[in-house]
């Protein structure tokens, strides 16, 4: 029997805008967030007991690119920190586990990425199996198209459903100061656009973005000291599925279902869900997997279709939910992050305002 987790909460958040091209360095993006998030708590860099960041060397095409990112965090005197080559949401998961040990109370979590210097469609093709898939040039957009086609063929969705996700996301993004793509578009206008990678149209894809995000999490009374309205993390779980699309039912997200079960998502209603919908059809799959009904507001920020700073995108979902809980706009919410082609790996973070 797993013991109940130690109480840990998000006490401060920060994110940069999602930029089509940020002309300065990734450490600059990070430094901006770190300064901001520390300012919200009046913590000094030396008060942070553990730092963990998520980023990806391949985005800048430079091995060990993450080493430079430490310049934006601060590491003198030396710090206790780590790095995952994953979205910042997974860094949060490790930080949350680290705080469970009980010897430290405050952790800083960062996610950052600049996609603009490269060609993401080519770069992310390198995620596929190097022996049997990568030689086929299976890029992420084509794989997302295959998943969208599976939904259509199974009668589980229509192209109009995809367009409705996009129209709503872009409309909601108009209220998000960090959003990159925010405008009113009607579903019929969207359906009139040509295919990019059928059945996907350009607007079904996320924008190419640069950006960063950071959160401070703290345990127990330290969280109450640092914030009047912490967003308590009730559980984080992540699961992966087979890498081979042919071995999966692409119309479901089994790993999201598993992760949601682990955190007890279905135990009570959730007011808000921020889902890492990189391609519009994914929202339909994720809503089903997480069992979200009409009472849950999905992606009020506009989601990744409005801004997709890779490696921060998942952590930003956590921030968007935490911010709403902390502002009293929601009492229980779920954040979701994904990695890999066709939603291969999924993370679920359940939060509430406590009581």
């Amino acid at each position, binding site marked *: 029997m797993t013991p109940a987790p130690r109480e840990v909460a998000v006490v401060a958040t920060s994110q940069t805008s999602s930029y089509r091209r940020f002309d300065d360095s990734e450490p600059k993006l990070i430094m901006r967030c770190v300064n901001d998030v520390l300012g919200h708590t009046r913590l000094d860099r030396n008060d942070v007991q553990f730092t963990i960041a998520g980023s990806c060397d391949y985005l800048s095409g430079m091995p060990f690119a993450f080493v430079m990112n*430490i310049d934006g965090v601060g*590491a003198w005197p030396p710090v*206790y920190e780590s790095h995952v080559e*994953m979205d910042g949401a*997974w860094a949060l998961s490790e930080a949350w586990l680290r705080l469970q*040990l009980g010897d430290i109370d405050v952790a800083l979590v960062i996610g950052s990425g600049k996609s603009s210097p490269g060609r993401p469609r080519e770069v992310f093709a390198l995620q596929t199996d190097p022996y049997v898939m990568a030689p086929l040039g299976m890029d992420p957009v084509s794989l997302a198209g295959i998943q969208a086609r599976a939904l259509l063929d199974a009668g589980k969705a229509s192209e109009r459903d995809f367009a409705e996700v996009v129209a709503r996301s872009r409309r909601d993004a108009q209220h998000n100061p960090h959003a990159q793509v925010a405008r009113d578009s009607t579903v019929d206008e969207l359906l009139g656009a040509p295919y990019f990678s059928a059945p996907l149209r350009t607007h079904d894809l996320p924008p190419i973005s640069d950006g960063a995000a950071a959160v401070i999490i703290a345990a127990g009374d330290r969280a109450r000291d640092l914030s009047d309205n912490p967003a308590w993390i009730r559980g984080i779980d992540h699961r*992966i599925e087979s890498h081979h699309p042919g071995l999966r039912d692409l119309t479901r997200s089994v790993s999201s279902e598993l992760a949601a079960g682990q955190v007890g998502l279905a135990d009570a209603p959730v007011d808000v869900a921020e889902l890492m919908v990189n391609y519009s059809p994914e929202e339909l799959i994720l809503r089903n997997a997480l069992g979200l009904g009409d009472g849950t507001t999905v992606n009020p920020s506009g989601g990744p279709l409005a801004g997709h700073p890779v490696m921060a995108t998942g952590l930003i979902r956590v921030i968007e939910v935490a911010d709403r809980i902390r502002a009293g706009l929601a009492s229980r919410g779920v954040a979701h992050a994904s990695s890999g*082609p066709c939603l291969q790996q999924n993370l679920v973070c359940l939060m509430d305002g406590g009581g």
Partner: protein
Amino acid sequence: MARPCAVVGIGQTDYRRQLDVTLDGLVRWAALEALEDAGMTFADIDAIVIGKAPDALEAVMMPELSLADALGAVGKPIHRVHTAGSVGASTAITGATLVESGRYERVLVVCYEKQSEGNATWALSGGRSGGQGAGGTFAPWIRSYISRSGAPEHIGWKIAVKDRLNALKNPHAHLRIDDISIEKVKESPMLWDPLHFLESCPSSDGAAAVVLASEDVARRSPGPPAWVVAHAKRTEFSSFPGRDTVRPLAGVDCAEALYAKAGVTDPLRQIDCAELYVPFSWYEPMWLEGHLITPEGEGWKLTDAGETELSGGFPVNPSGGVLSSNPIGASGLIRCLEAANQVRGTAGDYQVDGARVALGHAYGGAAQYFAMWIVSSDLNPDFR
């Protein structure tokens, strides 16, 4: 609150070039050996943590995705660590954290590198052509150590010989140089003054794995557990005016935190042997001093007196170390698991007699990332 964690299974591939094994095959080889050692199968594992150095070394981005099937991870959590050269030890520490957190009972940790798939020196130069590589970065700091400590030049040669002699006892080792000698080392080509070819690590392929378990599981495991008594990590900037690159403060701080957690007050006496990350010969005395095992300026004397040999008072790298096998992303985990091998009494021909407490260590980047653990045959070793 933190629960005890132990190494209950160890697996290693051969570290020579593996041109006929895929990446999937490589990680699965190590994982299956570790599981067999632990008396488990993939079905028993609650979570998987993988680590490796830059993805660009094999041109596979976020390889936890394509390796999920080979590692039995489908339906489970898989987490990926990357902290430069220290990554193997960092990954072991993350795995231990998962167990200590109370959320997972059995965690499989796997690290690998397949240097034959790419060009590591290109990658270690930040991907820019014409880079200096790791040796080019470290050589000036080694020269600085020599001038600061007054160590004689044969120290580096002696370590190169010692680690290769140890490697002859390790069936996994990449380099097996039967006729290794001081003469052979000093006559090998000069790569980065004062480092000769034979004072440098090889480019290896390989994977290493450990199964980490909670106390309940460890007590029921078929083999002896190696208890993770303490672990620590520290990081500092790669470059700034006044930085001590010979004795980085992050390395000193990391060792201090580690010893404090373990209750070690006299590491040279209380720790029985160490697997230190020594990719270039001179890093043995530099880390003996930089991690407070000897006073400053005294590390090379321990080496010179033969104390770091397998039969010495403080054996360093009884497995042959990074100088004999360097699958980069795995090298730190190999240090950690070889420390565990010593305290479990499973180190075979390179077993240190009576080893009960051992140190596993790795460093990375511009000697700025440090990760270490202490393992023991006792859950609560008495250091009096």
